[in-house]
């Protein structure tokens, strides 16, 4: 804080401009401004600039962000694993990225899927109790094989009865799962295509709208130019008419 003010003390001037200084300092600056035309002019200019700044306003935007909780059973109230912004669509690039990611995962599953399932079928086959050992045994009798077949049939029937069991039937599982997987991949691809088409449609609409706006602005400008041109032409015609009138008057006088 200071009770005197010197020209060039910009910090103090800014304090005065925003009325954020001590009373004594404010009085000192006010006294100085009353006698120093340069500082008074500078203060006035800064003030004018501030007034002009007030005209800058951001465009109206649709906001309305809301946080929604997707899961309610949480250990900590705020450790929410997933947040959703409703009433606020994801940006286009995010949608595209998500579609691409889903497609890539689907594709990867589609490629890796059958082998994974095959491995699982192999392991199920190997896990059949006693099957491997008995198959490799040298002296296999018909009765043993019959017994094995019977046991396997019983187990398969049991598994079919409970389709939700984690270890699916070894023979039919790969084909069914492949079909399902293919259907899912197709669905993902379709969905991705639909999104891309929607995005394309949006972009096209945007381009058309921009084009139309530009056309309207251009037309407006052309119309204004014509107006000015017509105004000029009218003025020239008037001048010529006045000149002719004058000449007529002069010739008649003579």
């Amino acid at each position: 804080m200071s009770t005197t003010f010197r020209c060039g003390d910009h910090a103090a001037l800014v304090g005065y401009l925003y009325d954020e200084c001590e009373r004594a300092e404010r009085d000192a600056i006010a006294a100085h401004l009353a006698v120093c035309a340069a500082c008074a002019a500078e203060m006035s200019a800064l003030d004018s600039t501030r007034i002009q700044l007030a005209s800058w306003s951001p465009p109206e935007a649709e906001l309305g962000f809301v946080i929604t909780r997707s899961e309610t059973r949480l250990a900590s109230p705020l450790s929410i694993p997933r947040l959703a912004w409703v009433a606020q669509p994801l940006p286009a690039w995010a949608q595209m990225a998500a579609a691409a990611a889903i497609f890539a995962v689907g594709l990867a599953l589609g490629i890796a899927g059958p082998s994974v399932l095959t491995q699982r079928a192999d392991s199920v086959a190997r896990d059949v109790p006693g099957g491997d050992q008995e198959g490799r045994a040298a002296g296999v009798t018909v009765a043993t094989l019959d017994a094995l077949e019977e046991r396997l049939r019983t187990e398969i029937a049991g598994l079919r009865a409970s389709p939700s069991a984690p270890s699916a039937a070894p023979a039919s599982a790969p084909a069914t799962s492949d079909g399902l997987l293919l259907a899912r991949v197709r669905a993902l691809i379709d969905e991705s295509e639909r999104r891309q088409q929607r995005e394309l449609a949006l972009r096209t609409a945007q381009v058309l709208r921009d084009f139309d706006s530009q056309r309207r602005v251009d037309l407006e400008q052309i119309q204004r130019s014509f107006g000015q041109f017509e105004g000029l032409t009218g003025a020239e015609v008037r001048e010529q008419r006045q000149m002719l009138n004058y000449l007529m008057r002069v010739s008649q006088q003579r």
Partner: protein
Amino acid sequence: MTSTDEDLVARSRGGDVESFNELILRWERPIYALAYRVIGREEDARDVCQETFLRAFRALPGFKGQAKFSSWLYRIALNLCRDWVRRRRRAPLVEVPEGVDPLDLAADREPTESIEDLVSRRELSDAVAEAMAVLPEEQRTAIILKEYHGMTFQEISDLQGCPLSTVKTRLYQGLTVLRRQLEKNGLGSALGRGKNAPVSHEEAKRV
């Protein structure tokens, strides 16, 4: 009775999501306006605004009320804006006007306002935006926080992490550059060059 920010923060920390949504409703417009003025693009300002609240929500357990909630929010938003500006340094900072259609504008004008007034108001707004884009980031942010968010020197100093004197210098230099820019665009005379024709200190000394 309207709840204070502190009440809402406390309830949000206790797991009340609706209280946090109330805070969003209260602060989303100022944060959006800040982001728009700093980065100059409507779409990106909205993204920054959304990201600010998302980050604030995630970081809420760590917010102990050591600062005002709004200051904390502004800090998050400014950090995001700074990141954005650094990422897009090569791109023009302010793109104005953004999809402005004079005919649409005309439809929105007030009955007493002529097209000419509307256009000149719009021109002034655009000229200010363009002039602001010329400023260095620190000066621009200081002016935005002061002029449009009414912060004190101390609050700006805390947010920008610099001494008070630096804040004042940034404001002075920023306003001076803005004045010159506006004058260059023929807009400085409207208010400044009238009867009391303000001139710069150097100019005045020469007279």
